[in-house]
C-alpha cells in the first residue's frame, strides 16, 4: 500500500475521539510520521510534535477545553515514549531517511499488534 494512503487513512481514524484516546501510541506514531522533515539531520525531540498534536485535537469534534488538555497530555506522553525509543535506535540526530524507516518499522509493528 502506498505509504501516503496508509498514513492518511489511519490518521483519519485518529480524528475520532475514542480512537485517539484508546490508541494513543498508534496516533502518536502516525503524527510523527506525517510531520517528518523532508531531508537533512533531524533533532529528535518530543516538543517538535506539540503543534501537530494540537492540530489533531482541533480536528476532533466535541472536545471541551478540559478534554483537549487531558488528551493532549496523553498523546504527548505517547510521543515522548516513541521519541525515547527512536533515540535509542537511531541516535539523537538521525538523518530524515533513517528516522523515516525506523518510524515506519514501529508503525508497522504497532499495526501488526492491533491486527
Amino acid at each position: 500500500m502506498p505509504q501516503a494512503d496508509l498514513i492518511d487513512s489511519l490518521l483519519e481514524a485518529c480524528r475520532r475521539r475514542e480512537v485517539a484516546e484508546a490508541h494513543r501510541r498508534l496516533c502518536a506514531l502516525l503524527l510523527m510520521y506525517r510531520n517528518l522533515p523532508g531531508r537533512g539531520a533531524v533533532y529528535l525531540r518530543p516538543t517538535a510534535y506539540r503543534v501537530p498534536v494540537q492540530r489533531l485535537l482541533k480536528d476532533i469534534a466535541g472536545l471541551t477545553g478540559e478534554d483537549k488538555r487531558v488528551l493532549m497530555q496523553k498523546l504527548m506522553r505517547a510521543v515522548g515514549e516513541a521519541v525515547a525509543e527512536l533515540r535509542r535506535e537511531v541516535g539523537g540526530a538521525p538523518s530524515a531517511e533513517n528516522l523515516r524507516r525506523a518510524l515506519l518499522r514501529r508503525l508497522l509493528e504497532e499495526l501488526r499488534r492491533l491486527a
Partner: protein
Amino acid sequence: MTPLEPARPEDLERFLSGWERREAPPPPGVYVAAAGYQRRLVEEYCARYHLIYLVAVYDRDGACRDLYRCCQAPPPAEAPSRCFIFGDVEWREELAERCRVETYLYRFGDIREALKTLLEFGMHVRGIPCTDFSIDVLNATGWCEVDPVCCDVSAVKERIIESAARRRASPAAQHAPSGVDGRITEGAPSGGGEAAGGGSEAGGAGGGGCDALVRRVAEAVGAEGLDRLKSCLCRRQT
C-alpha cells in the same frame, strides 16, 4: 529510497553467492521498491561506498546467454519486464560520474521467485520496510497474505475504530480500576488502554463474526448488553 549505510559484507556474500557480478550500472528494468532520490545523501554515500544493484532476470526457457544484454531485449508476453531491479537508488546517468557501481545478475525461471528473492534481500539484508515495495510486487510474491498490514490497512482501521467505540460504550471500561471517569481511567497506565483494546480485538477476530455481533448488540441493547457480551468473550478467551 535512498542509501543510508552499506549492507554488511558477510550478508552480501552469503546472499549473492552464485550471482553474476558486473562493474556496470544496472540494465533497464522495473524497480521493485519505491525509488526516491535525495541527491545530497546519494553523493555523501557515493563518496564512501559502492552503489549495489540486484537484477533478477526472468528467463523461463533459459535462452538468455548474456543476462545483462537480455534486459535490453523486449519483455516476453507473459511478463511486464524481463529484468527486476532492487537498488538503493534509481540509476541515473549523472551518478556514473560520482559513484562506483556494482550490478549483480541472476537468472530466474519463475517471476514470483525472482521478485521474492529481491523482496527478501530488501527487507532482510537492507532493512527496508515492506511498504517501500511496490504493491504489485507484494501481491505477486504473496507477501500480502503473509503480512497483510504491508498491503492494506482498511481491516485494521476498522478494528481499531470498532474496539475504540466498544471501549467507550462499555461501562466496565469506563469504571475500571480507580473508579473515576472512564476518560481519565483509560489513560491512567500509559499503554494500558491500548493493551485492553488489543485484547478485545483479539476476541473479536478469533470469534468469527463477533465484531458484527458486538455492533448489533450495541445497537439493540446498548451498553448493558454490550457489557454482558464482553464478559462472555472474556470467558471464552480464558
